[in-house]
């Protein structure tokens, strides 16, 4: 992000903010959508993050660090929307079943399986996966963005990928199914 544009926003320039919002809106929305896995929630989180950027931009001391700071605000907005998910989601649980696995599922990785596995992760863990594997941020940059130690990021990523892997393996051998 152009530091000069950020400085203009810090001086209360609404036109500059409009330019900035256009420049970062798609990117923030893409990240929110991948963390929350829900179009409406992602739009709400992005809207909230953009408004917070406008309101709190004086807290950004170094305009060159705008990208990391904006992602942090976005993830914070996703946490808030994630709490809404927990309030409104149906109670899912896993039950054992004797249904045999269709052979073709042994080899096919279906995006629905990954979707379900990802949704089982907390927002904390999803954010680390998205920032690292979608935005390609280094683990150090993820830590910097989220304001947590690199060790915590490594721990969360390890836990998340272990969960995804286990779920993919389990879903490829459907000894369980989700019921509401």
């Amino acid at each position, binding site marked *: 992000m152009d530091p000069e544009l950020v400085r203009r926003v810090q001086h209360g320039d609404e036109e500059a903010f409009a330019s900035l919002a256009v420049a970062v809106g*798609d990117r923030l929305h893409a990240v929110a959508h991948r963390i929350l896995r829900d179009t409406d929630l992602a739009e709400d989180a992005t809207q909230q993050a953009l*408004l917070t950027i406008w309101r709190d931009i004086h807290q950004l001391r170094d305009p060159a660090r705008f990208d990391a700071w904006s992602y942090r605000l976005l993830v914070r907005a996703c946490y808030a929307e994630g709490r809404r998910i927990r309030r409104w989601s149906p109670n899912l649980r896993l039950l054992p079943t004797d249904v045999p696995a269709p052979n073709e599922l042994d080899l096919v990785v279906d995006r629905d399986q990954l979707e379900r596995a990802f949704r089982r992760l907390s927002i904390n863990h999803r954010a680390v996966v998205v920032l690292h594997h979608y935005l390609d941020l280094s683990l150090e940059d993820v830590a910097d963005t989220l304001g947590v130690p690199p060790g915590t990021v490594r721990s969360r990523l390890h836990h998340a990928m272990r969960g995804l892997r286990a779920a993919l393996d389990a879903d490829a051998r459907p000894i369980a199914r989700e019921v509401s």
Partner: protein
Amino acid sequence: MQTDREVTRIVRSWMEEGATALPDRVLDAVLDQVPATSQRRSWWPSWRFTDMNNLLKLAMGAAAVLVVALVGYNLLPRSGGVGAPVQTPSPSPSPSPSPSFEAATGPLQPGTYIVDDPTLTTVPFTLTVPSGWTARDDGVIVKAEDQPAWLEIQPWNVTHTYADACGAEPGFAEIGPTADDLVRALEDQEGSDASTPVEVTVGGYPAKRIVMSVPVEQDPSTCRFAPNELIQIWANAEETRWFAIPVDHASLPRLVVYVVEVDGERAVILAGHKDSASPSAIAELQTVFDSIAFQP
């Protein structure tokens, strides 16, 4: 069984799918609200380098010596924390910082710094660091992060503790404003163990030192915050900054809670180090911690 590389490839490929463009109506809604949304003016920077003159530096050094002389050293390996047993309840003199400041984040030059961001501490304080320390922009001051000699000091304005450190939902417990209120909340917290509070002094003020730990009977795999990794102790209201303790301290420092009573205000500071830190590193942490001087 998927290999790690396969799982990563699948996840990355899957991440590329899905919505990216922000609908115009959302952008319009944001821009419509901007004229009616005031920008917040910034507080003082959380970390400010105090451009103290030599006399003040001398006074600071004398104050630090006085505090050490009054309370003596209590090194970390035995106590599990920094701080010293109470021998005098009287506050130590603290010098006033110069009004000339500059923001300080990232690597810190050796010197004395003031922490006065109200989101980080209810009572401003100064502390003096030697070379090698870093101020993260979340207010944490660290040295050798992620390394065996990892040292850390965290100022906290604690407003919300979790009712259950292993709870399935955030479940904040309301806490009162005093130091004793927080101590009681930690003692009452489900899913964690709080050590018996030990009376110490921090910056010349009475404080209680508490070590939080994961109960042996606790199954950490069921904990909401980070199953098998961390249990939740407290957070800010937005849950964007947390104090959580690891189930296994191999990769993270063991932080000790100091709840300080400063003229009726509650100040909270965490301090600690990795178990692998050397005695000299621990002594350095002790020195930095002993340099804390509150500015009520």
